[in-house]
């Protein structure tokens, strides 16, 4: 039985295909359309999934959509009624969109699927899943557990913003929910907006900025904005927020509370903004920890699965892991709405169709997250030739040795190998790699390759077997979703003058043997690299370790600021020629920057809206 899952029409459209319960393919539309967070119908992603399964729409038994538009409309109407007459402006802008388009999503889906296959039996094949059920299904069914507590937290779906479900075998029962407008995701987004970043994409920046500041405002937030109960449930005081009725996340009362106006995008980041980021991060961590502790006490199960946008907060995830309330934690790598496509498909298969779930054998069912397109070597050579690239074809051993040498020489390397990752993190399939021991690497990559803010940290990819020697963490974290500290003995003692530095000035201080991936609080967002799921990346790290003694590489997504991660060899070559990357590896092709025609250099940094 084949089930196609689709998420679309809000942000991060995606498609996923499962065959007899096995995840065959999953990809986000933005990678094909080259529009970040593309919300349109994921036509390219669907076609890719069908191609990967060597079938067409007629060969698909069910199509599952990841949320329920009528329920969202109900929430919208009731919210406007509750706040009336405030919110009329928002109402008058929202209603035409809903009445013209969004209420008729089923019809839109029918038409789009009929354009693939005129005989598409939409009345029997098209299913709808609730938003948080899609998240929960994406967290539980691919996890390595037979039984688990499933916690989902995001901005908002239909009504739910936080949900708890219990997964057992092929069943998943929702136990309780927190409803809109009380939302952990929206609280974080409100501070993202207040700090001058873009809602829905700048949340990572708030998390990255937090270690530069002090949580000076955490008590103000808890005393005023959010009422947190002992079990982690919470309520937001809506008199400080504007998202129910206005076109912004926060209102003047919110700004008055902290004594500063909303920061304009690209304005200078001050210590105040760092303290604000640190404060909201501390509050969110407290809520998540209270939630997980109370869930362990209530359900007495050792396994926890997480999904929803808040589950991408890897600093909070790290705290949950270290807290130890649950023995085992598994987080869906595509925890945001793109993962809803996968969850909708898995939910339709296991819950709606009552199909059995494969017994867990210690491994999850995500294939390392490598669920996207792969390009054959002959195809890569043809595409690179057509793009005008000059390249060398090498065997695996020579290629890995040459790449490891370049990395040891502090070169920045574009690395495209095998299938593309599903989810927002690059995990060695579409990555930019660098030497973490180089003190200048963070700044170089941020300013000359990624063209993004210098404060933003980079993550380390490390051989799984060496992890405990370098970090205070010794469990699998293949999806870069857990933050842990660099081991004490790998840190460098700071001088008194260095310790006295504040904010961004801390950035230039060498803090450990691997400064490029050590954040200012000695933390790092870890990716454990496993021979079983990515043998090629594992071999590269091993070769780098043989040359330098260091089993760690800087691993950041292969893109520039605002650009979706590269998908095809042409995307990779364009990014290579548009940045100061020194070396590009695509499959078994190796490209040196100094061998490329200068005519092919492009400046495309303005092509993408900044995130």
């Amino acid at each position: 039985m084949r089930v196609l899952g689709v998420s679309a029409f809000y942000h991060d459209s995606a498609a996923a295909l499962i065959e007899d319960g096995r995840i065959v393919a999953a990809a986000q539309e933005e990678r094909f359309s080259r529009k970040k967070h593309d919300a349109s119908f994921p036509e390219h992603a669907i076609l890719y999934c069908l191609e990967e399964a060597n079938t067409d729409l007629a060969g698909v038994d069910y199509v599952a959509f990841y949320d329920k538009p009528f329920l969202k409309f109900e929430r919208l109407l009731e919210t406007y009624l509750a706040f009336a007459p405030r919110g009329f402006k928002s109402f008058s802008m929202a209603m035409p969109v809903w009445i013209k388009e969004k209420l008729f999503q089923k019809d839109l889906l029918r038409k789009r699927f009929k354009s693939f296959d005129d005989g598409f039996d939409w009345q029997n094949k098209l299913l709808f899943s609730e938003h948080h059920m899609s998240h929960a299904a994406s967290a539980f069914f691919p996890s390595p557990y037979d039984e688990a507590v499933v916690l989902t937290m995001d901005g908002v779906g239909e009504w739910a913003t936080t949900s708890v479900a219990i997964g057992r075998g092929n069943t998943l029962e929702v136990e309780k929910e927190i409803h809109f407008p009380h939302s952990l995701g929206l609280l974080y987004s409100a501070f993202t907006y207040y700090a001058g970043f873009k809602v829905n994409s700048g949340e990572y920046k708030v998390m990255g900025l937090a270690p530069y500041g002090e949580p000076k405002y955490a008590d103000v937030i808890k005393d005023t904005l959010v009422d947190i109960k002992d079990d982690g449930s919470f309520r937001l005081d809506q008199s400080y927020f504007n998202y129910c009725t206005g076109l912004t996340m926060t209102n003047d009362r919110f700004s008055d509370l902290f004594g500063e106006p909303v920061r304009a995008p690209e304005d200078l980041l001050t210590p105040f903004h760092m303290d604000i980021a640190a404060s909201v991060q501390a509050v969110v961590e407290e809520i998540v920890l209270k939630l997980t502790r109370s869930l362990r006490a209530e359900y007495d199960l050792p396994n926890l699965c997480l999904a929803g946008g808040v589950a991408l907060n890897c600093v909070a995830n790290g705290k949950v892991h270290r807290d130890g309330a649950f023995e085992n934690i598994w987080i869906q790598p595509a925890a945001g709405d793109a993962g809803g496509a996968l969850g909708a498909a898995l939910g339709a298969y296991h819950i709606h169709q009552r199909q059995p779930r494969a017994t867990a054998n210690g491994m999850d069912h995500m294939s390392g997250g490598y669920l996207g397109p792969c390009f054959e070597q002959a195809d890569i050579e043809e595409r690179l030739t057509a793009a005008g690239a000059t390249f060398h074809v090498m065997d695996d051993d020579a290629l890995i040795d040459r790449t490891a040498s370049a990395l040891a020489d502090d070169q920045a390397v574009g690395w495209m190998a095998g299938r593309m990752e599903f989810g927002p993190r690059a995990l060695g399939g579409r990555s930019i790699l660098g030497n973490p021991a180089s003190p200048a690497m963070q700044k170089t990559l941020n300013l000359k390759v990624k063209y993004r803010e210098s404060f933003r940290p980079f993550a380390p990819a490390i051989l799984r077997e060496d992890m405990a020697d370098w970090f205070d963490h010794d469990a699998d974290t293949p999806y870069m979703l857990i933050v842990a500290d660099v081991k004490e003995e790998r840190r460098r003692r700071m001088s008194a003058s260095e310790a006295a530095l504040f904010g961004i000035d801390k950035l230039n201080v060498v803090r450990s043997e691997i400064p490029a991936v050590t954040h200012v609080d000695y933390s790092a967002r870890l990716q454990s690299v496993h021979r079983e799921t990515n043998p090629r990346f594992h071999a590269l790290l091993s070769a780098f370790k043989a040359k330098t003694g260091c089993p760690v590489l800087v691993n950041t997504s292969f893109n520039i600021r605002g650009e979706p991660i590269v998908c095809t060899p042409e995307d990779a070559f364009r990014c290579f020629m548009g940045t100061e990357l020194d070396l590009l590896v695509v499959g078994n092709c190796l490209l040196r920057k100094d061998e490329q025609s200068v005519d092919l250099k492009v400046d495309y940094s303005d092509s993408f809206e900044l995130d």
Partner: protein
Amino acid sequence: MAFLLEMWEFLKVRKKFWLLPIMLVLLVFGGLIVAVQGTAVAPFIYTIF
């Protein structure tokens, strides 16, 4: 027509018949807005979708 039937089914399942008059007014009112505006451009409102 199929849409109206589905909407009716939805109201029955959710037991929210009190939304029916609001929805009917909205459909008329919204129809007018759409007719006057010509196009409906999605504004950036985080929670309307």
